């Protein structure tokens, strides 16, 4: 019997179905909660009026639903409903916040600050603003994924108009210290934008006390439909932004466009359910995440990516050393996760977030992000642990790096081919 047969007696366990894998990629998106779907449906065929139609009942009823949803969203984050602007998603919210505030306040200053671990919708927007003539500082983060507050403070200067720092990181689940960062900005009259796409419904957010001026939300990360999001625009103190979508003056002139009632109702209901269920969901999810980690830790040479404490309970990002991420994903088709490996990103570059945390390319290549959700079960976690363990073992028997490490070679001393 070959080594391979010894370690992988059956790579496809009975009952597993690669066409319908165990879903552990909730950070990418979530299924719409059936209760949300039920709430949305009447707004497609019965209550289909344009919420901006002032002259008839079809419009009035639709508008009522939109305003109720606005209250539902604002109540999750303890904001005033008038501070919620509907958008097509967190990407648009990020664009609106950054471009909107930067353009509006151009006379006050030209300098913007953000972190290297931000979502692409922030980083790419910052890059675009740089092309327009703004000065952008992208700050490094520590190995934990957290920004050093002293480093952040040192980057703020008289011409700084705005900083953008995400609440919960989408790759690692690391939670930045928004309260402290906000305080540093507030005293200097600098606007703070927070991308909370991965945070809403997962960690408590209290905008009545947090010194945040703009906050982006997404529906589809929290069991709502894709294609709808919101931007919190603070009123006390009042935040002004330049609209990016023109035509009709909807949303107090901040975002024109007919409101998609059914989508908004969905987002409202999803945020409402999140508010009702966050505490109990989180307790259960934390238990599952800890179970997953304790199972995976039994594998040799596994590293956790991201601060162990300041992390939302839904996320586990781990690197399996000496095994390449895409080859690992290929072997675990019965589980849906995502990887920081270059091969799985369109650009052939390894995860920039993990690299910003100081992880070398190999660890970024061999990383897997697991994100647990409301409907995940303990059985699914156990299945995942078993599958990952077997596939990692199999791939290591095929890995020359593992061979070398077993033989006591220090890979750092090898002169690899130039590139």
């Amino acid at each position: 019997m070959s080594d391979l047969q010894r370690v992988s007696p059956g790579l496809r366990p009975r009952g597993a179905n690669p066409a319908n894998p165990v879903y552990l990629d909730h950070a990418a998106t979530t299924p719409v909660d059936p209760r949300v779907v039920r709430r949305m449906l009447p707004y497609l065929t019965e209550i289909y009026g344009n919420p901006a139609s002032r002259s008839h009942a079809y419009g009035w009823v639709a508008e009522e639903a939109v305003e109720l949803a606005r209250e539902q969203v604002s109540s999750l984050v303890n904001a005033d409903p008038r501070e919620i602007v509907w958008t097509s998603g967190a990407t648009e919210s990020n664009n609106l916040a950054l471009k909107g505030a930067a353009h509006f306040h151009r006379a006050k200053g030209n300098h913007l600050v953000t972190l290297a671990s931000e979502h692409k919708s922030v980083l790419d927007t910052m890059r675009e603003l740089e092309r327009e003539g703004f000065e952008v500082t992208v700050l490094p983060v520590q190995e934990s994924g957290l920004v050093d507050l002293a480093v952040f403070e040192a980057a703020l200067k008289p011409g700084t108009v705005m900083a953008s720092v995400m609440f919960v990181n989408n790759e690692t689940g690391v939670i930045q210290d928004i309260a402290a960062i906000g305080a540093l900005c507030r005293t200097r009259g600098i606007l703070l934008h927070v991308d909370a796409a991965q945070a809403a419904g997962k960690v408590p957010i209290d905008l009545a006390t947090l010194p945040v001026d703009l906050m982006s939300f997404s529906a589809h990360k929290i069991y709502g439909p894709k294609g709808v999001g919101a931007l919190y625009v603070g009123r006390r103190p009042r935040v002004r932004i330049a609209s990016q979508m023109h035509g009709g003056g909807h949303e107090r002139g901040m975002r024109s466009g007919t409101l998609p009632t059914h989508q908004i109702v969905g987002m409202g209901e999803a945020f409402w359910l999140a508010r009702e269920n966050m505490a109990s969901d989180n307790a259960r999810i934390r238990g599952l995440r800890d179970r997953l980690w304790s199972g995976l830790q039994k594998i040799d040479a596994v590293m956790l990516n991201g601060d162990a404490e300041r992390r939302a309970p839904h996320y586990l990002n781990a690197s399996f050393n000496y095994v390449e991420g895409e080859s690992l994903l290929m072997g675990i088709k019965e589980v849906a996760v995502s990887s920081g490996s270059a091969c799985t990103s369109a650009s052939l570059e390894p995860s920039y977030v993990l690299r910003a945390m100081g992880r070398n390319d190999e660890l970024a290549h061999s990383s897997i992000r697991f994100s647990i959700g409301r409907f995940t079960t303990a059985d699914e976690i156990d299945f995942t642990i078993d599958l990952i363990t077997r596939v990692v073992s199999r791939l290591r028997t095929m890995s020359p790096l593992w061979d070398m490490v077993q033989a006591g070679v220090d890979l750092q001393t090898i002169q690899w081919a130039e590139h």
Partner: protein
Amino acid sequence: MAYSDKVIDHYENPRNVGAFEPDAADVGTGMVGAPACGDVMRLQIRVNSEGVIEDAKFKTYGCGSAIASSSLVTEWVRGRTLDEALAIRNTQIAEELALPPVKIHCSILAEDAIKAAVADFRSRRATRGAAGDGLQLAAQPVCTSNPN
């Protein structure tokens, strides 16, 4: 990502995984790639006294296409002379495995691995058993993506 059936086959049933004694006189070892690029292939060939490759083994750290490329190569070099092995082109590997454009570099690396293994075998024959650790690292550039 959609893999061809052949890539999946090589991934699930890789041919000739393993290692030869690197110091053996009839073995050539080629190691190409770099962990930072996400691809490292180690190809070893056992050459008989007639200069024909009798056996080949590989180990690869890399994606499914990289594993398949190197696994395929161990099949193709068997029974070939060293010069015939050097004639194997990455385009043939890519065609056999139906590699998409974004994975062509895996086949290039596999071709480089052959060259490295043959070069190692020949150089060690030339120095007649001079001490070596069996790790002959190719000097050609491998990461073709923008290292930003």
